[in-house]
């Protein structure tokens, strides 16, 4: 039965398993790193902007430009351009570990900009209240911005992770693995539609799980807050 509908895929169970794990590994590792760095960068953008907590025209405009540059370099070129850097960082520029570097670098500005946009929506009255209590800027960021904006941050995060999963498909370019590479190299390029399809379905499942986790986190954050 399965063999009939998935003539090629059924020969590759093990590869599917490995590829899935590789995609998960890439997603999680780069997600965590890009998440932390992107969050920090986004917060710095937020507070150094004109109406921010600690306006600083110079820092803001430099970081703002870096974010734009980071977002506008096509991934494949980014990957090539930063190879020397990748090599310093992980010792090689090929393979699954190596591709996480450009994925992280590509995701940081993507996430940072979203964090910035999202935190701009936090009620300014509440920020003021915190100021009036003598809260430090760091305190306001940690305990007001991030807390009040948490739901939006979660939404932006699942959005970003899903985007990042898309980027992991490029891993194959430098000999990395994962489901994207599998779909392309073992499936699409060889006209094996069943392999392509199955790889994509597995990617989709990961995406759905991400979205579901995101939605659950939102629900959990809003628990008890319902009206």
């Amino acid at each position, binding site marked *: 039965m399965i063999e009939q509908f998935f003539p090629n895929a059924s020969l590759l169970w093990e590869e599917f398993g490995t590829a899935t794990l590789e995609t998960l590994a890439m997603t999680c590792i780069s997600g965590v790193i890009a998440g932390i760095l992107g969050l920090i960068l986004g917060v710095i953008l937020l507070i150094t902007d004109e109406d921010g907590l600690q306006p600083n025209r110079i820092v803001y405009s430099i970081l703002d430009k870096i974010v734009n540059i980071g977002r506008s370099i096509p991934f494949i070129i980014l990957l090539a351009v930063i190879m020397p850097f990748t090599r310093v960082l992980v010792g090689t520029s090929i393979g699954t570990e190596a591709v996480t570097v450009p994925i992280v670098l590509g995701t940081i500005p993507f996430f940072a900009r979203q964090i910035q946009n999202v935190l701009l929506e936090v009620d300014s*009255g*509440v920020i003021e209240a915190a100021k009036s*209590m003598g809260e*430090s800027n760091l305190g306001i960021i940690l305990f007001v911005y991030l*807390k*009040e904006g948490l739901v939006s941050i979660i939404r932006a995060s699942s959005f970003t992770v899903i985007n990042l999963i898309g980027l992991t498909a490029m891993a194959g370019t430098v000999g990395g693995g994962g489901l994207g590479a599998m779909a392309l190299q073992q499936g699409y390029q060889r006209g094996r539609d069943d392999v392509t399809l199955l790889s994509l379905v597995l990617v989709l499942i990961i995406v759905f799980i991400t979205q579901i986790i995101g939605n659950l986190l939102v629900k959990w*954050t809003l628990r008890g807050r319902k*009206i």
Partner: protein
Amino acid sequence: MIHLKNISVHFKQKNREVHAVKNVSLEVESGDIYGIVGYSGAGKSTLVRIINLLQHPTDKSSEVIVDGKNLLSLSQKELRKERKKIGMIFQHFNLMASRTIADNVAFPLRNSGLSKAEKEEKVEKLLDLVGILDKKNSYPIQLSGGQKQRVAIARALANDPKILLCDEATSALDPKTTLSILELLKEVNQKLGITIVIITHEMQVVKEICNKVAVMENGNIIESGNVVDIFNQPKQALTRDFIRTATHIEQAEKKILSHTKEQVYELKFSGRHTADPIIVEIYKRFGIVADILYGNIEFLQETMIGTLFVTLEGKVELNELEAYLAEQDVTITKINKKT
């Protein structure tokens, strides 16, 4: 305790500037409960936000001295330290939607050095004081308007501030709750010596707890001083207006005039310390029978003030009557129908 000198605040808008506060100076002494009243838009909120520098004065010559420190010359860090000593209740509450009521009140205690249990105890005590302990695990969105305001009050008190700034702290509250909150404020003022600045449009609140009051109009403080003095001898038209409207004399006058054809007199008690039975005395001395149509008389910090509208039956010698009443610290005025 609080010295504001030459404070001006201008907001720039597209095509014009709004002068919300115009070169105002204000002095609040330690232990004062200082009321600020004035029409909506007079600049009250803006002025009070100067005290903890949430609003910066737009004029270079301004001085903001709180508890002996010139706030405008402080570093960010020092300013934060001073702000911790100033509690604030915002007109729009500004509660954190993501925190429960208890967590909102606990927020200012984060760096207080209290243990978790101590914090919890303190929060519960505060919530109990304002009467919403049962809502401690609810979120702001689940509260009624008045409940939110009470959370804001509890939060402002959490830090044991030296100064409490209240922007309409009781406007959303029913009279009973208002009373209990005002008593709470009075208590913290007396027991802990907290200085309180309170914006309100309810003259009753001023009467109830303030010892001083400033009246704002159009960005200016047009009158300020002791509550008793101001209630007795308001110098500015606006102040008089405010007191009259607040005590509903104006409405009463209108109504009475439309209900009676007889001549109506206003007896005004301003700072009468003795308590002689005026109405009966008038009858005894002049044979005049006074019928009370409207009355609003009360003790304000040991002195009796208020107004009676009366009709007088008998042979009224206004001059004599006037002279006698003046001795008693009461003024009499003939009220004419307005056309």
